[in-house]
């Protein structure tokens, strides 16, 4: 917990007490076709229009019963504002970055009006709408990409990772440092707009890079980001990150949003005393292809293991059945054993 006035007061308010059941929440998107149909809002509108964005987020609470609303479904809002060429996709396709403006590692300058660019403004406005609708009743979660993920978008993933492999650390660090103010500005703006919590998503995942890369390049940056933002922060790094859990704790974040690949008991044992754990329900096998009973069972396992905020491990596949999302909520409502 960062020692600022807000966090100290919130902590004092609850004094370490917890309710009869765990919270069910989604640090990343739970937008799926079923939810879009119920909300009457579809992609790509939900990425581009604040009312649509907020309506789809609200459906996660009103229709599925999650305790959170999280209105950002793509990972490219900041990149678009920084000048990356974005294809906003359609009902069946998530947005993608098509052209990488800084493939040559040229300087990245945050535009003066960064927060007013349409792809940022829409998120801030949606958070404001949600604040007016459910503020104080449902936890509002914002989401911001960290410098590592932004570098994938601005330079191209392969290109960026090649520079890392080549040991071009000055070049890599310069790009990360140029992107850091973008992350900080957007996190602070989301808190100011009404977010209760903000997710810092930064994909230094084991599928791509090692713990030593995280430690060398990203940990110092995450620590600096944490020094410059207020409010509770959830770090999201997908993949099996069992080899770097303690490094995440060193970053100073309040919670870690993690995948099923990391056993919940192990994660709680190793990190539970230092930060909260969120997520853990498997997307590809359980939520997408499993039955509600499978989801229920897995959710109970995570709750019994001591995961604090139960939910999907990552942004869910668009064809995830709504019943499976409801099964997470049902398992949460069974309460603690």
């Amino acid at each position, binding site marked *: 917990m960062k020692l600022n006035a807000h966090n100290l007061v919130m902590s004092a308010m609850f004094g370490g007490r917890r309710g009869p059941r765990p919270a069910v929440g989604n640090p990343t998107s739970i937008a799926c076709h079923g939810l879009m149909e119920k909300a009457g809002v579809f992609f790509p509108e939900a990425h581009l229009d604040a009312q649509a964005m907020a309506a789809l987020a609200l459906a996660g609470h009103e229709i599925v019963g999650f305790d959170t609303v999280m209105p950002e479904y793509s990972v490219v809002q900041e990149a678009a504002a920084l000048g990356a060429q974005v294809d906003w996709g359609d009902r069946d*396709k998530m947005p993608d970055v098509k052209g990488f403006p800084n493939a040559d590692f040229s300087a990245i300058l945050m535009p003066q009006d960064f927060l007013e660019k349409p792809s940022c403004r829409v998120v801030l406005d949606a958070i404001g709408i949600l604040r007016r609708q459910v503020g104080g009743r449902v936890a509002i979660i914002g989401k911001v990409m960290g410098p590592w993920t932004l570098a994938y978008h601005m330079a191209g993933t392969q290109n960026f990772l*090649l520079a890392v*492999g*080549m040991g071009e650390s000055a070049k890599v660090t310069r790009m990360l440092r140029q992107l850091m103010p973008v992350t900080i500005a957007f996190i602070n703006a989301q808190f100011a707009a009404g977010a209760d919590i903000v997710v810092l998503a930064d994909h230094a995942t084991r599928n791509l*890079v*090692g713990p030593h890369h995280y430690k060398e390049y990203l940990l110092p940056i995450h620590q600096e980001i944490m020094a410059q933002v207020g409010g509770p922060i959830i770090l999201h790094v997908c993949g099996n990150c069992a*080899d770097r859990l303690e490094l995440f704790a060193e970053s100073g974040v309040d919670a870690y949003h993690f995948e099923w690949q990391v056993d919940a008991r192990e994660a709680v044992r190793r990190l539970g005393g230092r930060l909260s754990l969120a997520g853990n329900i498997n997307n*590809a096998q359980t939520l*997408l292809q499993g039955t509600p009973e499978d989801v229920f069972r897995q959710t109970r396992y995570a709750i019994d293991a001591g995961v604090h905020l139960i939910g999907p491990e990552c942004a869910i596949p668009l064809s995830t059945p709504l019943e499976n999302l409801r099964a997470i909520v049902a398992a949460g409502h069974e309460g603690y054993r």
Partner: protein
Amino acid sequence: MTDHLHTIKAAVIGGRHGEIKGLVQQALDAGLDPAAIINDALIAAMDVVGKDFGDGKIFVPEMLVSAVTMKAGLDVVKPCLTGGESQSRGTVIMATVKGDLHDIGKNLVSMMLEGAGFKVMDLGTDLSVDKLIDQVKTIQPDILGLSALLTTTMPEMQNVIGALKAQGLRDKVKVLVGGAPVDRVFAEKIGADGYGANAAEAVELARRLTGAKA
């Protein structure tokens, strides 16, 4: 193995891209067989790299640098291959299927196949069935390599195979599939000719499938 081959192999594994050209040139000057430099040093090194990646000992940045190092070495050897050796082992089209932009794995497979002596036409990402069929007709490759990293785009592989059948092209080209969510069972189910879990397996498979030519 000779010292030269051993040194080259170690340089590729270690990603020492600055040294590789000199090392390969020294080996050629010492009279080593260019084909041996390729197969027993450059490609053999990437087999080790692929395995280390699979075992979680190294990560994508290191693997990319090794691949770049291998390619730099190849550029030095290739012009020295004599008639028979320089002949392509076959032509391969590589592509990531429609709706999918993941290309790091596919690019590594392309580089390795090229290293192994195949002529590779990498068509990029997000390739529609129609476009692929079109290219298969024009290029007439021995192998069509398809990559998918999303569970939602895996069915596209089946669509491609279906379209090849419908166009009477299925027995003219071998179809290889790969990508993290793809497995052998899926490959068999959709009627692909082979599945490779990594770039080294892709090379083995391609060699086997073009056996007559190798």
